[in-house]
């Protein structure tokens, strides 16, 4: 059933170098719309690096060379679209909850404001809608003017998700979004991800294999810059084709 879903990203022959070090080797994959795609693999395998190529965050690092193409809806994101527009379409949630040191309201309104929305009524609406979608509205609606750093880590992370949603992206990249959170907050974020995939395409990097198996539709396994195996999550976890994948998910290394 999920196979029929539209393809959002097409990655062709992607290579990435940090100076002389090759961090990604010849990656080819399709990422599907309205699905959760999980990237798993041991530390340093390139999964986060790959995630960051999708909204061109690697551009910020000196000395990065990227070869090959990534197409979003058929458009090459490295040559045919302005990076600002790309990042508006492809939001990102980071490993550590990282709200700006300002109020919850200003955090969520930050994106719309930098894109030129100034009307108070419109901003109010966006902030409320985004916080509701991020399932944190009820918990913070009485303290929107409070500093975002004053709420709990799990709430901060959902405020960060709301901040990403506020610019109306199509895609949300999540870089180990629950690794700094307790189990209950983790559960809330996972439920939220499942809820959000109806409207957005979600790509999540995770260290936690159970998490990948719980929430993702497809899983890609990375090892030292190679994508070893990519397929439907059920198949990857129950019936991996590659020996290395099996070794990793059964906990033989990693």
């Amino acid at each position, binding site marked *: 059933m999920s196979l029929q879903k539209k393809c959002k990203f097409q990655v062709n022959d992607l290579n990435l170098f940090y100076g002389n070090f090759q961090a990604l080797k010849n990656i080819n994959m399709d990422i599907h719309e309205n699905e959760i795609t999980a990237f798993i693999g041991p530390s340093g395998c390139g999964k986060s690096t790959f995630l960051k190529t999708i909204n061109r965050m690697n551009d910020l690092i*000196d000395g990065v060379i990227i070869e090959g193409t990534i197409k979003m809806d058929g458009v090459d994101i490295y040559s045919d679209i302005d990076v600002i527009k790309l*990042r508006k379409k492809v*939001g*990102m949630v980071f490993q550590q909850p990282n709200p*700006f040191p300002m109020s919850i309201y200003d955090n969520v309104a930050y994106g719309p*404001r*930098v894109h030129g929305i100034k009307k108070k009524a419109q901003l109010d609406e966006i902030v409320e809608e985004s916080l509701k979608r991020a399932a944190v509205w009820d918990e913070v609606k009485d303290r929107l003017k409070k500093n975002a*750093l004053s709420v709990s880590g799990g709430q901060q992370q959902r405020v960060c998700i709301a*901040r990403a949603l506020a*610019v109306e992206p199509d895609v949300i990249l999540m870089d180990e979004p629950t690794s700094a959170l307790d189990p209950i907050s983790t559960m809330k974020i996972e439920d939220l991800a499942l809820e959000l995939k109806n409207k957005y395409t979600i790509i999540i990097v995770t260290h936690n294999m159970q998490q990948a198996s719980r929430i993702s539709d497809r899983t890609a396994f990375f090892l030292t810059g190679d994508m070893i195996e990519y397929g439907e999550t059920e198949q990857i976890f129950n019936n991996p084709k590659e020996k290395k994948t099996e070794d990793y998910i059964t906990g033989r290394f990693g």
Partner: protein
Amino acid sequence: MDRRKKDGIANFFIYASAGITVFLLVFIILFIVIKGLPGITIDFLTRNYEDKTTYVNIQLNKGEGGIGEDGYLPVLGAYITVNEQKGIALTKIDKDSPVKEAVDGLGEVYALKNKDTLTKIEDTAIDSYEKVKDSMTQEEYLKNIAEIFSEYAGQSVKIKVVRPGGGIVPMVVTTFYMIVLSLLIAAPVSILAAIYLNEYAVKGKLLNIIHFAIKNLAGIPSIIYGLFGSLFFVQILKMQYSLLSGAMTISIILLPTIITTTEETLKTIPNTYRESSLGLGATKLQTITKVILPSAVPGILVAVLLSVGRIVGESAALLLTAGTVAQIPKALFGNSASGATLTIKAYTLMKEENDLTTACAIGIILLIIIIGINISSKLITKKLLQKKGA
């Protein structure tokens, strides 16, 4: 030697060094306060430094001439007394005294104050009592003076008034001007430079060289900057000894400090702020103005406040660029723009007049300013950090 003894000796040196430091600090502060305190008077805080001579017209009261026993002069509506060097001094002025409506040569009101000295009435010079003390008593002297005034009772007379100086008002004003002007030049330039170095510059050899140069600039003694300033600003740019020459020179001295401190502050701002802002589609400039700079404000403010301390304390560079004249500068540059700051005046007072009391009194004022700056920088940091919720 056993371990106990070693510890004992080490401890002795540690305590002794700490003790010496505290003792010196307390001693210096006490020295300045004890020597300077007698010099701090209302006059010192409110008066001009130089005596000021003015001709004024006064409409004297009619009627009774003569002088009261306590020195009251009815035609002036004020008490007078003998002045040491010249003329007579006003000691107490009636509320409706005509000297309060004295008018200067430009037709503007120049109300006389206590301690103003009258040295000439129309064309009659008022000799000092010193000159005539062999031939008459003080009472007789004052009576003579009263008679001169009585001749003009009810008339408008031209009187030469000397308002005594001895105050630090011009130096306080010059110091204030110097602080504002230097910061107006130095702060924006160095903050922008720090932003460039931390946010835009590509890391590499060139950046290392720039950093090395900035560190070394911070270590050059200020007299070198003073020499440069006096050659470049004062002479080549023909600004003369002036407020602007001084402020420009000080700005150069401040650049490395503010740049370094601001850069350190920018470095402490987590990279995730930049990443998430850019990740939301903000431009680099938006990221800097909306996220980075607001987070850096406490650090930048502290850098600026510490610079104020540096400006207040600067002497060598200003000596060569802003001059030593005790006046309020009347322009930014040119002939009448020279002015001495408090520190410069303290220096010239010791060097040229050997006036330790006044120099120390200025020292007390400087101490108060510096302590005030340090307290406010603490308060600002505390308050802003609270606001940030960190």
